[in-house]
């Protein structure tokens, strides 16, 4: 058929046939030259077979879609010279050699009645992802491809929350277009990060019924062990107290798995592995909490290396998206400066966040006597849908117990 070579092309003049009846053609062969108001174009073919009949004459002006030639199956005899009765069509007209994509395969019918399951493959045009207008706009602002996200909205559509969550989990560095390098540092746009934090934290406070527990842990043994450990090592091999907090938490989580995982679709899903999101404050504001994977399986030295690597890359903007998606639980530790205690906000869909204040020297009663001890306030903020306070108390106690046996960490 006369192909449409442009939106404004209505007809074309067949200038020259480059094949004749009986010619064998294959996909990509040029079979004719057509003249249009934009000039002459070679017409190539998208089929294989034998030219059965040339329907259009050279010099003829034909509208788009008009029959140019019939193509038979490979090897098929060309039609006889005298025209066949017009009612007898051996083969349907070939599809136009246009650049239309093949029709999408028919979608498998969704099982009906399973209302709770969001339809993953949207039923829209040609499998196009369903993205809400605001989600699309926000994704554009954040430089995220919304079509790549898993939609949780109506009919599996990608909603604003999906975009905000993805933004908060992934590095929005691949943002296309010009960027204001003034504002951006190390791959993060502070405004975008603020928005992402705002979205995630708002969602958390809106949807997660938090409960909070805290306890004070005597760090004498842990720090003493650490001091001894570090004394024998050059600075680059030394550990930070954070390593002990991470290890103690990871080991406690093994015994209390209800704090390690996600609340999704109305129920708790335990995490596969203990991947601790470590909250890292970025210079100049903002916060990300990428995962250190399998903390329970790392040695203190290995963990320290992982931590150093993670913090370094976080500051430099080199966190992988998967590292943002991985955490099964989060720890926020204030280190040696800042406040004495912290009560965290759970990062949805996780179910718990541990908070460690700075280590402070305080009076402490040991064997009936008041002595100065380095203490840390440890807190647990947990999702009451997934666990109860009693279990939370046991979990905090387990962390304390592990910190009293630093050599086992």
């Amino acid at each position, binding site marked *: 058929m006369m192909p449409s070579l442009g939106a404004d092309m209505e007809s074309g003049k067949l200038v020259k046939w480059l094949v004749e009846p009986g010619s064998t053609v294959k996909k990509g062969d040029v079979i004719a030259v057509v003249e249009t108001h934009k000039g002459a174009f070679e017409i190539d073919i998208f089929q294989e077979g034998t030219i059965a009949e040339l329907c259009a004459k050279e010099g003829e002006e034909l509208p788009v879609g008009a029959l140019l030639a019939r193509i038979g199956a490979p090897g098929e005899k060309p039609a006889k010279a005298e025209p066949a009765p017009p009612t007898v069509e051996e083969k349907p007209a070939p599809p136009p050699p246009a650049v239309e994509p093949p029709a999408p395969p028919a979608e498998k019918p969704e099982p009906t009645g399973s209302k709770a399951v969001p339809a993953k493959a949207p039923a829209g045009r040609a499998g196009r992802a369903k993205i809400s207008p605001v989600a699309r706009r926000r994704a554009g602002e954040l430089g995220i491809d919304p079509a790549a996200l898993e939609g949780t909205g109506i009919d599996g559509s990608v909603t604003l929350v999906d975009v905000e969550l993805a933004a908060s989990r992934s590095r929005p560095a691949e943002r296309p277009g010009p960027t204001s390098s003034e504002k951006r540092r190390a791959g993060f746009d502070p405004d975008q990060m603020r928005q992402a934090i705002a979205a995630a934290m708002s969602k958390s406070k809106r949807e997660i019924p938090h409960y909070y527990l805290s306890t004070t842990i005597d760090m004498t043994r842990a720090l003493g062990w650490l001091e001894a450990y570090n004394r024998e090592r*050059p*600075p680059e091999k*030394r550990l*930070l107290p954070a390593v002990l907090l991470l290890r103690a938490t990871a080991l406690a989580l093994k015994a209390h798995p209800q704090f390690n995982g996600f609340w999704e679709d109305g129920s708790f899903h335990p995490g596969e592995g203990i991947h601790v999101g470590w909250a890292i404050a970025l*210079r100049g504001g903002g916060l990300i909490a990428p995962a250190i994977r399998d903390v329970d399986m790392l040695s203190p030295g290995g963990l320290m290396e992982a931590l150093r690597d993670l913090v370094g890359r976080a500051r430099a903007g080199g966190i992988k998206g998967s590292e943002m998606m991985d955490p099964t639980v989060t720890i926020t530790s204030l280190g040696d*400066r800042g406040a004495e205690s912290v009560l965290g906000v759970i990062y949805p869909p996780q179910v718990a966040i541990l908070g460690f204040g700075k280590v402070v020297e305080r009076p402490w009663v040991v064997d009936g006597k008041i002595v100065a001890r380095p203490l840390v306030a440890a807190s647990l903020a947990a999702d009451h849908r997934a666990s109860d306070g009693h279990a939370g108390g046991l979990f905090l106690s387990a962390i304390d117990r592990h910190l009293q046996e630093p050599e086992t960490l």
Partner: protein
Amino acid sequence: MTDAEIRQLAAELLSDIAPETDPSSLPGDRDIREELDIDSMDFLNFIVALAKRTGLAIPEEDYPRLFTMDGIAAYVGEKS
């Protein structure tokens, strides 16, 4: 190393860690951790770098002497 060289080195190492700051303009008696907003990991990285550049061991118990520029200058000057 002279006092000035030590201070210059420290400022250079610190600005690697806190690139948006200007440690060289820091008053010598201020806590660099507060002034440059560096945390324990940053500080440890600073110690690692300082040890490497000066060849000093810098045991952990000496860390508190390295919280100010004046302290760093005195410490490195004394040990090297």
